[in-house]
């Protein structure tokens, strides 16, 4: 599927056209983003998008997409089966009416439920991750008539009102306070810290079973089992945010299946769209607590544009594709290949790389120095890998390649990463001693300052 590049929209961009795009982007959206991208040599314009790769419209250079919009392309980019599905359904009609029932909505919900663990048998559709998180928290609070929510340090759930309040890092919240009160922060993988915060006032415990922006940390089975038991004892709704780790990325269709722990609500978005058409959902257990509230209050949440006829048909084909092609199995096999390769690199460079983590196609390298995240993004880009460091942990480089990756592509990826690490070794010889000077260290760890300096160096 990687060889068939889609048709191109236009010829290669000139440098002038590209800088016009960057300038316009800066003018209408954000100049700061442009500066950051320039600093990391990530100021490219995506053109051909296919499988695990895309090409830069300006240079024609191909990049392995190790960012994947944080897990949106689990069927691979420009997947023909998904494009065909979109074409088919949109030839027969539009998005439909969000206030009415349709065959596509019902059939997708049934399919989703049939592939969901345990008694996760009911669906509420929405438009994106943040909205889905808001719907889950509203349901948990309303059904339990409780207000408090236990969240995890460094957790990331989105930017809408409830989801940003559930964020485990202050920088997403500080400029917008006061946000919704009652969110209590526990330590991830520390059951006693969760126990200390959970009470009869707790509506929900929400967590990413494989934490993404927080730096790719997997919940232990014991932690998930302990949290499940705690929720059962205290009548708390357990919510798993599988927005990044779901849809076959980690070797199972849902990450929770590794532990066998079934949450009360599972939140899905990103890859549900097939990388083509936004859609999101929560799947919740058919238990009296939740079902009864929704039955009595069907209007407690609705989405205009989420759960559309086109979106649901496309999302159904995403599930079909993942299941029929055993993408989860491939994610596990190729994930092991890549993880082994990264661990080899780590053992060769113990002074640079602290740890390699992750499962399947959700992997990460943690550096010994915070500032290396930004530098490594640049050396990776120079060597044809587009990757981003974790939003809530800049010393962690995340690799979220399409789980449809072939063995050959996995090897190619490792070759490129090795080159990037070699370049990093060269740079770090100069930077690490300097970074030990207090002023320089603070500057290097200041992402905003580094972006401005890097961007300026590029210009000069």
């Amino acid at each position, binding site marked *: 599927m990687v060889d068939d590049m889609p*048709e191109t929209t236009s010829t290669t961009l000139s440098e002038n056209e590209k800088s016009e795009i960057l300038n*316009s982007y800066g*003018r*209408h*959206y954000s100049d*700061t*983003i442009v500066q950051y*991208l320039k600093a990391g040599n990530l*100021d*490219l*314009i*995506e053109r051909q*998008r296919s499988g695990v790769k895309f090409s830069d*419209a300006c240079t024609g250079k191909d990049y392995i*997409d190790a960012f994947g*919009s944080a897990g*949106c*392309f689990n069927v691979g980019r420009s997947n023909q089966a998904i494009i065909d599905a*979109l*074409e088919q359904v949109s030839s027969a*009609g*539009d*998005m439909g*009416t969000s*206030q*009415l*029932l349709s*065959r596509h*909505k*019902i059939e997708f919900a049934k399919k989703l*439920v049939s592939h969901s663990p345990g008694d996760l*048998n009911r*669906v509420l559709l929405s*438009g*994106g991750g*943040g*909205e889905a998180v*808001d719907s889950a928290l509203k349901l948990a609070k309303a059904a339990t008539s409780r*207000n408090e929510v236990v969240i995890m340090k460094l957790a990331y759930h989105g*930017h*809408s*009102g409830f*989801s*940003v309040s559930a964020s485990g890092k202050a920088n*997403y919240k500080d*400029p*917008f306070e006061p*946000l919704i*009160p009652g969110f209590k922060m526990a330590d991830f993988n520390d059951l006693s810290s969760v126990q200390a915060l959970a009470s009869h006032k707790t509506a929900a415990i929400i967590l990413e079973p494989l934490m993404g922006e927080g730096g790719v940390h997997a919940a232990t089975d014991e932690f998930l089992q302990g949290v499940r038991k705690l929720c059962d004892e205290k009548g708390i709704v357990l919510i798993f945010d599988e927005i990044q780790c779901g849809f076959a990325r980690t070797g199972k269709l849902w990450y929770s299946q590794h532990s066998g722990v079934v949450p009360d609500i599972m939140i899905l978005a990103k890859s549900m*769209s097939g990388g083509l*058409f936004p859609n999101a959902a929560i799947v919740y257990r058919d238990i009296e607590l939740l079902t009864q509230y*929704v039955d*009595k*209050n*069907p209007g*407690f949440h609705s*989405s205009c*544009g*989420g759960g559309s006829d086109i979106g649901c048909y496309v999302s159904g084909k995403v599930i079909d594709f993942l299941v029929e092609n055993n993408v989860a199995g491939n994610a596990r096999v190729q994930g092991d290949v890549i993880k082994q390769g990264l661990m080899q690199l780590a053992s060769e460079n113990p002074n640079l790389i602290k740890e390699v983590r992750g499962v399947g196609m959700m992997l990460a390298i943690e550096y010994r120095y915070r500032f290396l995240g930004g530098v490594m993004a640049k050396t990776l880009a120079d060597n044809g890998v587009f990757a981003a460091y974790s*939003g809530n942990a800049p010393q962690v480089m995340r690799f979220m390649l399409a789980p449809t990756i072939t063995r050959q592509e996995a090897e190619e990826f490792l070759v490129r990463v090795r080159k990037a690490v070699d370049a990093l070794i060269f740079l770090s010889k100069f930077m690490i001693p300097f970074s030990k000077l207090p002023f320089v260290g603070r500057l290097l760890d200041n992402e905003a300052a580094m972006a401005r300096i890097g961007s300026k160096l590029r210009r000069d």
Partner: protein
Amino acid sequence: MQQNKFQDVSTEESLFLEAESVFSKGLVDSIRARGHDFIEQGGDDSFLFDSQGNRYIDCLTSASTYNLGRNNEAIIDELQQASRQTDQGLFVTTSEEKVALAKSLSAFVPGPLNCMLMQVVRGEPFDGACKLARGYSGRSEIISLKGSWYGQTGFAVSLTERDDREDFGSSVPETRVVDKDNLMSSINKNTAAVIVEPVQVESHCRLLGPGYLRELREVCDKHGALLIFDETQTGFGRTGSRFAFEAVGVNPDILILGEAITNGVFPMAGIMYTEALKTFFEGSVGLHISTFGGHDVGCRVACKAIAEYERVKPWDNASIMGDKLLEGLKAIVKDNPQIFESVQGIGLLTSLKLKTEKLALDFCVSAKEAGIIVMPALLDKKCVLFRPALTITDSEVDMVLRASMEAVKSL
């Protein structure tokens, strides 16, 4: 539009049962209660189809989304072409598509609102607007008006007076919902923003009026508060101008756009704001992100829809047909004072108020039998909203009025 006429009643009934089990019985019951006991199967222009091959005039348009009519061919063609040539893209990067949308949208939207942040569905941009106002101003209080409906996300729920608001626990602190008469006096030096819908659609399409909005602008300026207009339902021509604020001549600092931006072909919504406000987002990256928000396929679709809006200029027709619809409904109200209280609206955003909530639901049921799809307002449930495609023809408005008269007879 392909119509599938092979389905029999029993499969339709089984779909309803499945919907009860996979969504909720309460949801299916509420849909049936307003007479929409059918499986929708697309639409075309002013019409919505069910799986039995019945055609209805769509006066719901997914809550003011299909301003250019259902199943718009040009925009759907663009969706298909774009999906073959591009995809969602990486949300952290720049792209040709995002820039093309920025240019066409800032040219389309009147006034100095040239900066933007795109999101997916209504509610999210509302929350984005509130956060921007707080972040930019360094103040925290956000004030809104009773009778507004903003969506389902955290800030939106906090600033909407709805029956179930308490169900969701604590609201966002320092958000206030006040009476129309008390709004001006509520604004103070701690007010980050005042947020209003120029037409309170879900509360009997109450118009705030030019005088009121001009005064609001002045009072906001006096206290250094930002003014936000939520034009989710009023935008893209529905009230007889591109945006309601254009006709009134009052520029907001932030404008909220709804899904009409793609004419219901792609989930997209967003906010537009002045260059001054953009400085806040320049302070850092990632302060407010949307994965699907700057979707490259979505940007292509929205660009095409905006070109269609420019070509068709549906606001002119909305104004003419809106007047005709309003006059026709006024006559029905006048002839049936025992059933109706009043009718009001602007452009093709019209609200018919009945004596009771039960009567409003019954009207929707009878109206469906008579061939039109309408739904009660979300806040003032005695009201039935008429918000058809803005491209509706004169004879189709006649059909809406005839169906309304028929519906009255069976009440």
